[in-house]
């Protein structure tokens, strides 16, 4: 018997024939196809009971109610809360992305202490007990050295129990330096206090729902102005009702596109247009007689100033509009049948504005009787439900003390807080006037204009405590972090100050169990206060934050837990705000930084609902909605008119160097017909730093390029843009 090659061939053939007659090849093919269709590294989302829970969004000041869809104990989706007075079921891109904040990589997972140099982002985790003990010891040292006034605090909002617990802690310790992030709402408060001779917590409320003609001086009605969801919903209702909306702006923003009526005024000349219109109204005797007489004052002087300084020709020259067009707009605005409403506050209103503009616009409303009337603008007293904020023990220790930012007294009597003045005060010669800074729900290092100076100032503060839930630019400079729960894991009352006419308080609720070793900042403040012992501890008689909230809200607490918000339907706005003082003179418009000869262009920030420029960095879903005409790769895209671009030798889609008095940046240029010649628009909300790759080091922070401008009347930052040059790279 001889075995050769052919024998093995036969063996192989036999094996092949045999195998073909077994299920093996067919079964393997099937299994392998199933295997390739279900790669094991692909997550399989777990199933479970589906529940919907009510909460509140805190990512912007807009005050939306949210409905959170849970599968088991996981939050899988955030939707708008049907029936909520602000958003009634609608929701914005940022709000939807809240799950990406809750579960995202920017969360701080436990208390941490700085272990490297400031800003090096090196941290070592510590226990909550140690963290609280350390902060308490630092405060004690300061107080014992008699430097309690150098204790300062920055919070995102000045109302609600959480910020007021901070304010109380500072006050009891003897420091008046409780500061808040400023926005358009602060400019409006200042205007209302000044022109209606009011004081206290008073906001502007806009009765859009009943208005017949909206004239917006650069306000991004559908781009997030005030309360974004309320504004988008209302703007649509108005459009359906064929209510005319006119947008005064330098480019075709989403709002201008939506209203289909753009009045292209020269940059910074919004106030002059308003005053020019007022001049026409007075000259043609179209003003409301009872609004300028009675309890109002200063009309004669105001009229004289208008006549003298705002002649049609002068206004036409300044604004670049035809005097006939201005007169026509003025007549339309003054027509009582139109129930007009003029608003201001640029873009999303996340930044304050110039008092010249706010006063001019408010006076324009007043002139035609549109203040404190249906469909007009109201002076609205903020909801006053926190009794313990008013007790005298809280104010006694700080009576007569001057704040570091000098807000609330003298020249700046109408403003509560002037955070924008802080960096210069810190950087002045000598020790930093702030010895210990507490930061909660604010990110001033990112949101304040003049980033470079702000960074330097913060680095000079000896000790910074951050209570942020996420790693942001300010927290990166902290010495110790006591991380807050995210807004989906904690209780918090949120009084909404966003141009609403009726008071509204939202309640954020723990809809998810805490994901990490974090604590509600309210609890932490109470713990710190208790650790400081008498007399500080006595001012905090609550067991914990929930106890404080329940006792503060009283009989509102249970219904709010169930419904998610509280509102006073019977509220009548405008009470106590009958007097109106017309200004005899107005401050100048903010000067644009930079040399006009070398920087012939005007750089303006542009905002949209697809990019939020506030304290919270945009989340991945939001970044995905950003068009490539705003961001391309890691580079910000700036918009210029094709004519401007051509005259500068720029090419569409190509790189250029953008320079301002504050700094420069390499940008990509996009040509867009819908922007005024000589203007460059740069998206606001980019230029974040940190380790989150989807957002970090993309584009530039507009605060790097636009220097702050201190308003002479309010003291707030009034810069709306800057001079700039754009050169081919």
């Amino acid at each position, binding site marked *: 018997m001889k075995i050769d090659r052919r024998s093995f061939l036969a063996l*192989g*053939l*036999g094996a092949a024939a045999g195998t073909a007659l077994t299920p093996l090849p067919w*079964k393997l093919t099937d299994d392998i196809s*199933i295997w390739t269709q279900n790669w094991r590294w692909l997550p399989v*989302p777990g199933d479970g009971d*589906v529940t919907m829970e009510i909460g509140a969004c805190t990512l912007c000041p807009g005050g939306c109610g949210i409905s959170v869809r849970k599968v088991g104990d996981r939050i899988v989706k955030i939707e708008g809360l049907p029936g909520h007075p602000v958003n009634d079921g609608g929701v914005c891109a940022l709000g939807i992305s809240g799950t990406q904040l809750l579960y995202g990589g920017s969360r701080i997972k436990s208390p941490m202490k700085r272990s490297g140099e400031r800003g090096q982002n090196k941290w070592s985790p510590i226990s909550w007990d140690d963290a609280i003990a350390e902060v308490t010891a630092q405060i004690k040292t300061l107080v014992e050295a008699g430097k309690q006034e150098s204790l300062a605090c920055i919070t995102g909002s000045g109302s609600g129990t959480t910020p007021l617990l901070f304010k109380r802690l500072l006050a009891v310790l003897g420091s008046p330096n409780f500061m808040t992030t400023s926005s358009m709402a602060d400019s409006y408060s200042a205007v209302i206090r000044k022109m209606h001779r009011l004081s206290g917590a008073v906001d502007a409320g806009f009765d859009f729902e009943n208005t017949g003609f909206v004239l917006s001086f650069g306000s991004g009605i559908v781009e997030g102005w005030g309360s974004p969801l309320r504004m988008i919903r209302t703007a649509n209702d108005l459009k359906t009702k064929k209510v005319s909306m006119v947008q005064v702006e330098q480019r075709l923003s989403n709002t201008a596109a939506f209203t289909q009526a753009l009045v292209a005024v020269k940059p910074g000349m919004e106030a002059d247009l308003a005053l020019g219109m007022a001049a026409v109204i007075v000259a043609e005797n179209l003003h409301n007689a009872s609004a300028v007489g009675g309890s109002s004052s200063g009309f004669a002087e105001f009229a004289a100033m208008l006549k003298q300084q705002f002649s049609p020709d002068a206004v036409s020259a300044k604004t670049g509009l035809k005097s006939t067009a201005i007169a026509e707009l003025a007549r339309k605005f003054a027509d009582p049948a139109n129930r007009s409403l003029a608003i201001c506050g640029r873009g999303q209103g996340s930044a304050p504005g110039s008092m010249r503009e706010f006063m001019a616009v408010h006076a324009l409303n007043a002139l035609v009787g549109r203040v404190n009337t249906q469909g007009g603008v109201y002076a609205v007293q903020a909801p006053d439900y926190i009794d313990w904020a008013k007790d005298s023990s809280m104010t006694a220790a700080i009576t007569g003390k001057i704040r570091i930012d000098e807000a609330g007294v003298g020249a700046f009597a109408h403003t509560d807080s002037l955070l924008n003045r802080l960096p210069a005060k810190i950087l002045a010669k000598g020790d930093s006037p702030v010895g210990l800074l507490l930061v909660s729900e604010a990110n001033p290092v990112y949101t304040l204009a003049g980033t470079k100076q702000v960074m330097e100032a913060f680095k000079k503060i000896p000790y910074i405590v951050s209570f942020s839930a996420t790693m942001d630019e300010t927290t990166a400079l902290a010495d110790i972090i006591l991380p807050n729960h995210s807004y989906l894991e904690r209780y918090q009352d949120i009084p909404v100050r966003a141009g609403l006419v009726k008071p509204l308080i939202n309640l954020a609720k723990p809809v998810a169990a805490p994901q990490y070793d974090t604590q509600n900042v309210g609890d932490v403040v109470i713990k710190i206060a208790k650790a400081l012992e008498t007399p500080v501890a006595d001012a905090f008689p609550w067991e914990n934050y929930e106890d404080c909230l329940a006792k503060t809200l009283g009989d509102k607490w249970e219904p709010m837990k169930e419904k998610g918000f509280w509102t006073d339907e019977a509220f009548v706005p405008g009470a106590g705000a009958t007097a109106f003082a017309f200004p005899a003179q107005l401050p100048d418009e903010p000067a644009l930084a930079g040399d006009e000869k070398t920087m012939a262009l005007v750089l303006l920030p542009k905002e949209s609902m697809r990019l939020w420029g506030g304290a919270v960095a945009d989340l991945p879903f939001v970044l995905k909605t950003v068009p490539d005409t705003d961001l391309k790769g890691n580079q910000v895209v700036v918009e210029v008119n094709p004519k401007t671009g051509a005259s500068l030798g720029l090419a569409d889609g190509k790189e250029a160097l953008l320079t301002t008095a504050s700094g420069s940046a390499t940008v990509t240029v996009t040509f867009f017909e819908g922007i005024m010649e000589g203007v460059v628009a740069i998206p606001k909300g980019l230029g974040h730093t940190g380790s989150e790759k989807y957002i970090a080091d993309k584009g530039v922070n507009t605060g790097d390029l636009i220097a702050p401008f201190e308003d002479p009347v309010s003291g707030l930052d009034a810069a709306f843009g800057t001079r700039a040059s754009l050169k081919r790279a």
Partner: protein
Amino acid sequence: MSTSNHEAIGLAPDGNPKKSEGSSNGVIVLFFIVGFAVSMAFGWLVFPKLLYSEKNQPFDFNHKTHMDLVDNGCESCHVFREDGTYAGTPTLAQCSDCHQDVQGESKDEEIFVNEYVANNKEVPWLIYSRQPDCVFFSHAAHVKMAEMECKDCHGDIGESESLKVYRENRITGYSQDIWGENIAGIRKNTWDGMKMTDCGKCHEEKMGSKGPCFQCHK
């Protein structure tokens, strides 16, 4: 499957012209038969054993005992949620309604109470009918609307006294019950397999078509 071994041998090479120089026909046939037989044995007997790994459930469960105690059949424990979705295996909370403490003398119940109820830990049951993530199966459509019996797809598991061994396909990661116990894919009962072809067959019979893709996929 009409080809018999006999016919297969008949296919062997025949009439080799160079008999004297190479191996004899007999050797070639022998080798062929060996190759054939070994691969047949491997494919039918060894391969199915290799393909599946055997896993034990965390502890045994007696469906029959429980069925005798409840009055709503399978749905007493395998419930529909209020929104119409089907909850699948009962949660710990459902079981601990009765099993807060050890009730009987079963060792398995002891494991359940001591390891899971006491520690508030869900039981990691191995699900025989677990489908890939791309599958959407509406129990409501079948049980409520078409009024099918649970056993039409799941067999007599409700009458079983103990859980069978979970045999996991090493390649796909799913239970053997999806393909069916018969390696050749032959079905005797409607519950012998849970592949798409099984769904399709029934749908074609009852509905006249397999239906659109999205009917059962997500």
